[in-house]
Structures are given as C-alpha cells and as structure tokens.
C-alpha cells in the first residue's frame, strides 16, 4: 500500500512541527524529502489526468509545462517551481549548504499542500465528467 500525497504532506508537516527528540536534527531533510515526494506525486497525478506521458519527462520539462495546465492560477505554477527547486536542493548533498530552516520548509509545504489539493479537485471533477 502506498501513501497518497495528502498523507505524505501531513506526515511532513508533523515531522516539522512536533518536537520529537527521536527526529532531532533529522527533520529538516526528512520533511523536505517527504514534501518533494508529495509534490512529485501530485505532478504525476496531474499529468495522468491532463497530459498522459508527461510524467515520464524530466522534472525540468514538467515544470516548464506546468503553467499551461494550471490555468487561472499562474502564481501557483510559479510557487510550485520555486518549492520544487528548494526541496530538491534540500534533498541532495550539496557542498557547503546547511539544511533548510523551518520557515523555508513551512513555505514550501504550504505550496505543496495547495498543489495536492488542486490536483485532487481536478481528479474529482474529472471522474464525475467521465
């Protein structure tokens, strides 16, 4: 059984907000990993609904296409690009970079949550149309 995107985001937020000594120091990167996976999942769902096949393209290509598939909300596409870039950077080992701070993560998480919700709404309306 796999976790759906909403569950991933909720877990990510939990990790961030709950001061659990077990995850001391680990949570920034863990939160980023989960949030990125949720975002990638949401993007995959979007492509499956709207442009099947695009989910196999590079992340860069997907992000370039995004504004055209999120009509009426250019800003969301823009924020998703920004969050994706930040989360990716946080997930990789980079020379001389510290883990993201909690305000950064909170901002990206909010964007991911929006994106997940958006795609879910699309999916719901799409299935009724079918």
């Amino acid at each position: 059984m796999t976790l759906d995107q909403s569950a991933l985001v909720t877990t990510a937020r939990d990790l961030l907000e709950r001061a659990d000594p077990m995850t001391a120091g680990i949570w920034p990167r863990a939160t980023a990993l989960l949030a990125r996976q949720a975002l990638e999942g949401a993007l995959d769902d979007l492509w499956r609904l709207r442009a099947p096949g695009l989910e196999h393209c590079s992340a860069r290509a997907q992000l370039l296409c995004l504004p055209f598939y999120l009509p009426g909300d250019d800003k969301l596409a823009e924020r998703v690009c920004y969050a994706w870039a930040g989360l990716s950077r946080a997930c990789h080992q980079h020379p001389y970079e510290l883990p993201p701070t909690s305000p950064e993560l909170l901002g990206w998480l909010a964007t991911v949550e929006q994106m997940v919700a958006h795609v879910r709404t699309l999916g719901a309306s799409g299935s009724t149309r079918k």
Partner: protein
Amino acid sequence: MEGQGQAKVVCAWDEGAALEAQKGFVQPKGKPKTSLPALGWKDALVSYRPFLSYNELGSMLDEGPSKLYDALSLVLGLEDLVNAQATLAKSRLDRQQALDGADQEREALVELLKTLLERESDDRASACLDALTSKSWGLDAAEAVLASGALPPVDQDISVLTRALSLDPGDSERVGSVVGALRDADQQLKAVAGSDAETSRQLALLLEAALEFHAGHGDSDCPVCGTKAGLTQTWAESSRKEVDRLRAIASGSDHAYRAASDALRKARELLPPPPKLLAQLFEIGLDGLAAAREQWDGWHAGSTVSDLTAVAIHLETRHEAFASAIQALKKSAAAELKRREDRWRPIATAISEWILTAKEARAGAEHLPRIKAAESWLKDASADIRNQRFAPIADKAMATWEHLRQNSNVALGRIELAGARSQRRVTLDVTVDGIPGAALGVMSQGELHSLALSLFLPRATLSESPFRFVVIDDPVQSMDPARVDGLARALDETARTRQVIVFTHDERLPEAVRRLAIKSTILSITRRPKSVVEVRTALDPIQGHIQDALALVQTTELPVTVLRRLVPGFCRSALEAAFITVVRRRRLAAGRAHGELEDELKGAGKLTPLAALAMFDDRERGSDVMNRLNKFGSWAGDVFRQCKDGAHDEVAGELKLIIRDTERLADKILEFP
C-alpha cells in the same frame, strides 16, 4: 575556572521579560552561588574581550582610527601612563588657571586701589598699590601693610587723623586744681609780702656763726663791729631767738615763692602752643578746625601771663570753650577716620583674602616648569613603551594575516599605534600589489574581515588575559573558499593555546576543518518552529546521513511506509557526500582552485554524473557507473539504485540492510584516489 574547578553559568529570563532583563548567576562546583560581576572580569572583558561578533568584525576597521586605537591599546596595560599624563596635564592646567585667576584678581584690586587713591591719599592703599604692581606682586609687603602693626609715615592723613584722636585739652578737674593752686600761691605770696627772706636767711646764718663762735670762745667783743663785750650770755640767748624768727620768715617766703612758680608752671603746662598737627589737619580739612585753632590760640595766649590770679582767671574762663572745641575737632577727625576706614576696609579685606589665594597660586606655579618637563618626557616615554608593548601583538597580527591572506594581493606590513589624544590612530602599512595607498578602500569585505580577525586574535589571546577562550561569530561569511582554509589554519594555530569557539552557518569552515584534519568538535544546531533548538554533535556528512537514517529507522512514531520514503533519501545524501569528498580531495591535492571545483561539483548535479566524476574523473561516463559499482559486488549496484530511485518513491527491501550497504559503499568510494 582557574583554581576553582568547574562552574556553571546560568542565564534565565522571566516570562515575557525583555532581552536585557536577564537573570544570570554563576554556580562554581561545591561553592555558594555568585554573580557574573562578582567574578571580577569586568575590566578584562573590555581589555581582552574574547568575543568577536560579526558586527564587530565588520565595523572594527570602519569605526574610525581612534576606536581601533583604543581597542588595541587597551590591552597594553598603559592605563597608568595615560593616567599619569592626565594627572600631570590636570595639575599643570590647575596651577596655570590658579595663577591666571590670581593675576586677574590682582589687576582688579590694583584698579580699586587706584580709584581710591585718586579720591584721597591713603598710605596703606599706596603701599599696597606699590606692592601689588611690583613684579613679584609684593605679597609679603602688602601683608605687612595690612597687619595693623605697620606704622604709616607721619605725614599721611590716616596717621594725622589718628593722632588728632589723642589731642588732650586737659580735664576740668585738673584745670580746677591748677586754678586752686594758683590762688593759694597768690595768697601765700601776699602773706610774705614785704619780708625779705634772703636777708633773713643770711642774717640767721651770720647769727648762727656768731653763736657758734661764742660757744667756742666764750664772751668776747663783737668780732664784726668791735662793740666791747658784745658777745655775752644774754646776747646769745636773745640771738638764738632771733635766729629762729629769721628762719621762720625765710622759710615762709621760700614756700610761697615755690608754690607760685609750681602753680604757674603747671598752668603753663595746660597751655601748650597749638600743635603742628593742627596745620596738618588743616590740609585734610575737617569740620570745627577753625574754631579749634582760634580757641587754641586764645588758650595758649594765657601762657605769657605771669600774674597768678590773671592766669587762674584765664584758665577758668577759657577752659570750657577750649575743651569743647577740641572735643568737636576730635569727633570730626573720628568721623573722617571712620569714613575712610569704611572705604578702605572692604579693599583691605579683599586684598588679604587675595593674598592667601595668590600665595597658594604662586607656590603652585613654582612647579610649573618641572611639570611641563615631566609631561614632555612622559609623552615620549609612553610612545616608546606603547610601541614596544604593541610590537608582539603587531607581529602576531601579521602572522595571522599571512594565514588568512591566501591569494590576496593585499600585503600587510607594519602596524603601529600613532598619534595621541584626538589624533590617535592605528597605522596599517597595507600595500596592494606592492603599491601603498588607500588600501582599506580597495579591500574586499572578506579581506577586511580577515584583517579585523588578524587584529582581534593576538589581542584576545594575550597571556595576560584571564580568558582561555575566544568566541568568534561567523568569520567565514564573505570569505572565498581558499581563505576559509587559511582561516581554519589560523584558528588551529590559536587553538593550540586557547579554546576557539566559532559560530557559523557556512558549511565551508567545518568542511575545511575536516579536510585539513584539524582537531575539533562540531556541533550542529537546528531550530524547529517556535525556536525549539536542538544541538547535536555533527559528524562528517557521510556518517551524519548514515546516522540520521539509522535514527529514523529506530523512531517508533513514523509508519514504515513513511520510512521507506525517507531512508533512501538519507542514504543517497551519504553517497553524494562520499562522491563529493573524493572529488574535492583529488582536485585540491592537484592544486586546483576552490571556486573552480565548486562550479564543477554543482555542474555534476545528480547522483549518477557525480558518481562518474568521482570514479572516472569524467561526469559524462554515467553509463559506466553501474558496471564499476558491480565490481564491488552486486549489493553495491543494488544499493546505489535503491538510493537513487527511493529518493522519489517507496523502496522495497530491508531498510537497515540498505543503510548498512550504503555505509559499505561509501567506504569503497572513499578509497578512490
């Protein structure tokens, strides 16, 4: 703490209290609680300030030359010299001011005296004026004048007036007794009038001689007139009676004359001529003087009268008028004296008060030349001592700069403390590509920070400092990577004798510290929402990610589906760190520049090109990566793939096994040259 063992410093804030309202205390082990100020480090905290905040790092060279001078010279222990200079200067100024003040007062007093003397002559005033206008201010002379014992010259008004006060017209009682004596003598004279005292006395002598002759020779003829049997017993008896009678006559007349001449003499004593004083008083011009002179002349006229009764009448009739004229004169003389005294007294008081301050001021001013000489000597000596003491600090600063300078074209030569007071400054002999000039202006922020750090470290690590640590806030910022290596070395140098605590959010310093194998403890501090701060000992990045992954697996909070999504991400980071370590080590060993290397690492991007770069020194050979990995065994290729894919999705397989294999693979990767 030295000699006290461990101590715990606690700082707490009440709910909602301001940052400044902290409550701090110190708890030395096994000793009573005390406060931070009680440790007595207040001065040392300023002199040997072991903290360098980022703000100070930036501002040290910007705040003006005197601030830097103060910061650097504070540690030289020259306070005593500075204080001595200040004390000398103050002493000189005080003395000079006292002298100037006294001189000003003197001028004011001279003006007062001149004004007074323009109106009237006053010997005291003119004596004081002479004294005060003399070169040495004639303090002793003026003091002598003011002391009432000093007698003024006789022709001066004050003395004339003073003497007028002792004019004596004779009291009426005495006049009365002289008058009585005159009248008595007059009556006695009248009683003996017509008798001849001298004849009687000579006759008595003659008879006495004849009686003696008779007593010696018996009855005989008179030896004087030859009368026969003149000298007989009968004659002798009658002659004795005659002698007694004659003597009485003679003595009564004598007495009367003597009394007359006595009385007259006493009367004349009462009638002296008008004294010269009156003429002198005339020059001053006093009320009642004319009347007094007239009375005195009239009074004195009595002295030429020889008739006793006439003299007695003269005295009786004139004395009252004469005496009251003289009393009136004395009164006006007293009034004049008082008037003058009233004018003089305030001046005299002012002068005598001034004399005290003037004496003090002059006594103080005597030392002025020596004080000035001491000042100039001390100034030179202080400059010498200052630069002697500063030399080791300057040397250390230059040595530190050499560490930090790396590829900078900026060279730091001599550092000197120059100037004094408001001109004090630190001269930095900075050259750019060998050209001296406004070097601070052309230095980059990183170079300026390095220079500030070079000046800070020697001062904070002086052996006189009670602190055996330094705390530096973010010195890495705005330094290029090469300089970070230099910083790490400089800090390592300092850490030989001091505990060095550095705060930074720049990973380059810990990386350099690890790469250069500098002994250190790295703590990582993370901050959750609501400022929940977590402190962990930081491991090198590879071990750090491995340990994080292991910690995640052990959490009971997270469902295994979440862990399957998280653990591969951490493992991938560990592998990335291993690849990066290999590449960086190889490149830096080959003498490549830091900047170039970082660009190359960034360009490699994803895991596979990075692996290719690490293993084949060619990021384009990504397709060969799996083959190469599988040479370690198929587990290596498997775990590489799991890390790569799992970062995006759930992985299957035993998580602990994935972590263990990641660690194994990382060790293998590190073996690449």
